[in-house]
């Protein structure tokens, strides 16, 4: 085997690089970049800006619904979006109704809300309160039925909030019945919940809808932007970094995008190396034939 390897020329070696070398280089590049923290400019797309502008156009005391439909497996891309949206809401004094329609999401969502409240307290000295500035309704199964139910009355699927407090006893929920009383739904999702919000939230109740989705999902939802079924889209870590930049607190996503540039460069180099090896060995094989 070793003798065979030693007979391979440079192009054959380039074509047959062990995948562990690729992983190794990629890991090294990511580790060094996370330590060095390079800074790159984040251009803002009009899809992200439209969400920011819409939210900025809302007045004190307006309501939005933040649907955190994801679990820890997609936290890397979606948590920074959630934090940035919550920051904007708390700063603008927009009241937020929050749901987590993914079975593994409610604990993580509660922790994210708590962190956002703590950060707002550190910045302003005021800690947003449950029931007054935000309400967390938690999780119920069968998201389609829950989305339809909330369209009639939030109290049908959620008579109590996540902390088991009756909705009618929360000052923030007085006079709030369904989607007609809120200005928009911001759906941050790593699952098909986005489809359900488009079909059953926007389609059935015409509630204005914006979405934040993982990179894998992003391209699937651009057609809905063109038709006006959604008014904005945040796609993957790039979208999260754009929103962090817009709200003026560059965080993990902006930092992550700098690392992305380095990681993508490494991948592109390996693709070029592999292709050079492929075309060179293909020519040699043809000559051999």
């Amino acid at each position, binding site marked *: 085997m070793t003798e065979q390897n030693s007979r391979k020329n440079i192009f054959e070696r380039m074509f047959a690089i062990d995948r562990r070398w690729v992983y190794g280089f990629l890991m090294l590049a990511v580790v060094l970049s996370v330590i060095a923290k390079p800074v790159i400019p984040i251009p803002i797309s009009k899809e992200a800006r439209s969400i920011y502008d819409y939210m900025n156009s809302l007045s004190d005391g307006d309501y939005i619904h933040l649907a955190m439909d994801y679990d820890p497996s997609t936290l890397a891309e979606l948590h920074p979006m959630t934090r940035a949206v919550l920051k904007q809401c708390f700063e603008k004094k927009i009241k937020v109704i929050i749901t987590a329609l993914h079975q593994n999401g409610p604990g993580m969502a509660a922790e994210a809300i708590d962190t956002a409240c703590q950060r707002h307290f550190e910045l302003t000295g005021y800690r947003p309160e449950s029931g007054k500035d935000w309400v967390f309704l938690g999780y119920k199964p069968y998201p389609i039925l829950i989305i339809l139910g909330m369209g009639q009355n939030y109290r049908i699927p959620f008579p109590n909030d996540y902390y088991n407090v009756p909705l009618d006893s929360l000052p923030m929920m007085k006079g709030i019945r369904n989607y007609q009383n809120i200005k928009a739904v911001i759906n941050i999702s790593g699952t098909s919940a986005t489809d359900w919000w488009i079909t059953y939230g926007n389609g059935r109740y015409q509630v204005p809808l914006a979405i934040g989705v993982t990179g894998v999902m992003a391209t*699937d939802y651009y057609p809905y932007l063109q038709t006006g079924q959604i008014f904005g889209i945040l796609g*993957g870590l790039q979208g999260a970094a754009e929103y962090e930049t817009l709200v003026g607190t560059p965080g993990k996503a902006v930092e992550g995008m700098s690392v992305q540039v380095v*990681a993508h460069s490494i991948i592109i180099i390996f693709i070029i190396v592999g292709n050079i090896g492929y075309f060179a060995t293909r020519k040699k094989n043809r000559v051999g034939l």
Partner: protein
Amino acid sequence: MDFATAIATTVAAVLTLCIFSFLYKDNPFYKFTEHLVVGVSAGYWVSILYVNVAIPNIWQKLLAGKWWYLIPAFLGVLMWTRIVKRWAWISRYPLAFYLGIATGVAIPLEMQTKVLEQIFGTVQSFVALHNSQTDFWAGINTVVVVIGIITSLVYFFFSKEHKGATGGIAKVGIWTLMIGFGASFGYTVMARISLLIERVQFLIDDWLLKLFS
């Protein structure tokens, strides 16, 4: 970082490293962590369903004297008859009930939002272009979208052999599809790298730096 947080973060960091070890080759540490993730997720899900469904939707309703909640509870229990082969046929009744409701709710809305709205969106932008209600670049975009849609549909039209004009149009269709797949793949690479970056940020910023600072 207090002691309890240090322990919890260290356990999380070690488990992360166990998962990464698969990149070298399959090993018992990876297997253990993989099973742990699946087990914890399933356990968490069961407890969430019990607390959020069984307690408020069945138990509390029955305690409040709303006996008719026994009907959906009974239908739910019937689903479990699938476990016993002899009684499995009974599960078809609640399943039929569920499917009937789901299709009744889904078909009109799915048709409206995912087919009709999309066709309308495509045609509407073309009409706006025809009536000169759109700027030059938006017009180019509309033409590209319409050509892309028609040629992609022709590619999936198998009743006529892909030769001559049809073959040419289908070739444009396959290029359109490839560009679409390329965009998806680019986003997918970004998504996967994002997961790696977040874990490395955790290992360095939240674990190592905080543990030794």
